[in-house]
């Protein structure tokens, strides 16, 4: 999309950091501010930024629509699956003690991380879907095809 050299070069260096920062926010959700929602949005903005600079077809080559659609559902399933795992292990729904009964604190940390990843995957992929669908058919390089 952009012919601007500075933008293209700078984005190439920025996008990986945006994605890693998003993962960091999710992964450290139990220790520092942030969590699945914030981290998911940070990841999504990384992809959207890439799409804005290099064009949506380039972004969809990395992250096809089929993959985003599947990941939206997988995130929710990860969350609910953690809950049902706890239920099947003989504890209450989303009682993270079930993940490691000998070490409830560790189980809680693991459970929270799994759940936060579920939230983060869903939120980021819904954001990318929003971008894909709202800008559908509006970008010049798509129109020229």
């Amino acid at each position: 999309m952009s012919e601007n050299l500075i933008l293209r070069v700078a984005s190439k260096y920025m996008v990986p950091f945006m994605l890693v920062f998003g993962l960091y926010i999710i992964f450290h959700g139990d220790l520092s501010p942030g969590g699945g929602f914030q981290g998911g949005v940070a990841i999504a903005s990384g992809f959207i930024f890439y799409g804005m600079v290099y064009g949506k077809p380039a972004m969809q080559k990395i992250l096809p629509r089929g993959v985003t659609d599947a990941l939206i559902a997988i995130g929710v399933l990860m969350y609910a699956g953690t809950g049902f795992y706890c239920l099947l292990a003989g504890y209450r729904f989303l009682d993270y003690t079930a993940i490691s009964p000998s070490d409830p604190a560790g189980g809680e940390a693991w459970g929270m991380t799994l759940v936060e990843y579920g939230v983060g995957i869903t939120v980021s992929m819904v954001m990318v879907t929003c971008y894909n669908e709202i800008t559908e058919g509006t970008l010049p390089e798509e129109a020229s095809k």
Partner: protein
Amino acid sequence: MFNEFFVPIDLCLLALIVVLAVAVVQARNLLAASMLMSIYSLLMAAIWKNMDSLDVSFTEAAVGAGVSTVLLIGSLVQVGLEEKPRKGVHPAGLAAVVLAGGALLYGTIDMPGFGDPASPANANPVSIGYIRQDVEKVPDVGGHYKDFKQHHDYFHEHVPNMITSVIVSYRGYDTMYETTVIFIAGVSMILMLRGRRKTT
């Protein structure tokens, strides 16, 4: 913790936000209005940070200043950049806005000070339980759980971040359905928009 140092900075930021809010309403060009909205969100993120609510600040900066601006501009490509010319001030609308705003301002008089430890929200036993992280779990009826009662009767202070422990541990159900709401929003967007527009 309330920091006196931030008061002048906050006042400047809030003044700028009022200016921006008026500018957004006045802007004829919708692209300019979207960009002003983005700046507005960025300043709000700075204010949230000064109030030590970093979670809100992250979200405001990423969603408000970043993603939603992109989505607004994406929609503007469809609907055109210029606003329709408006007629003069609508008197009933103005009266309603002034009344509602006045009522809201009047309501703030009764509110406790920012970060006041004696305020009802902070002094409530439930909030204290959440802050100390010693909220009792729901009493169990099954037999299996009784063996672990000594260790597992409470949510213990496992997670240093109070907000995360409230969101995904004490209120895990709520967050699961919030995620489901986002899921449904994404699915409806796919169903309604995908493939409906012709790529000209």
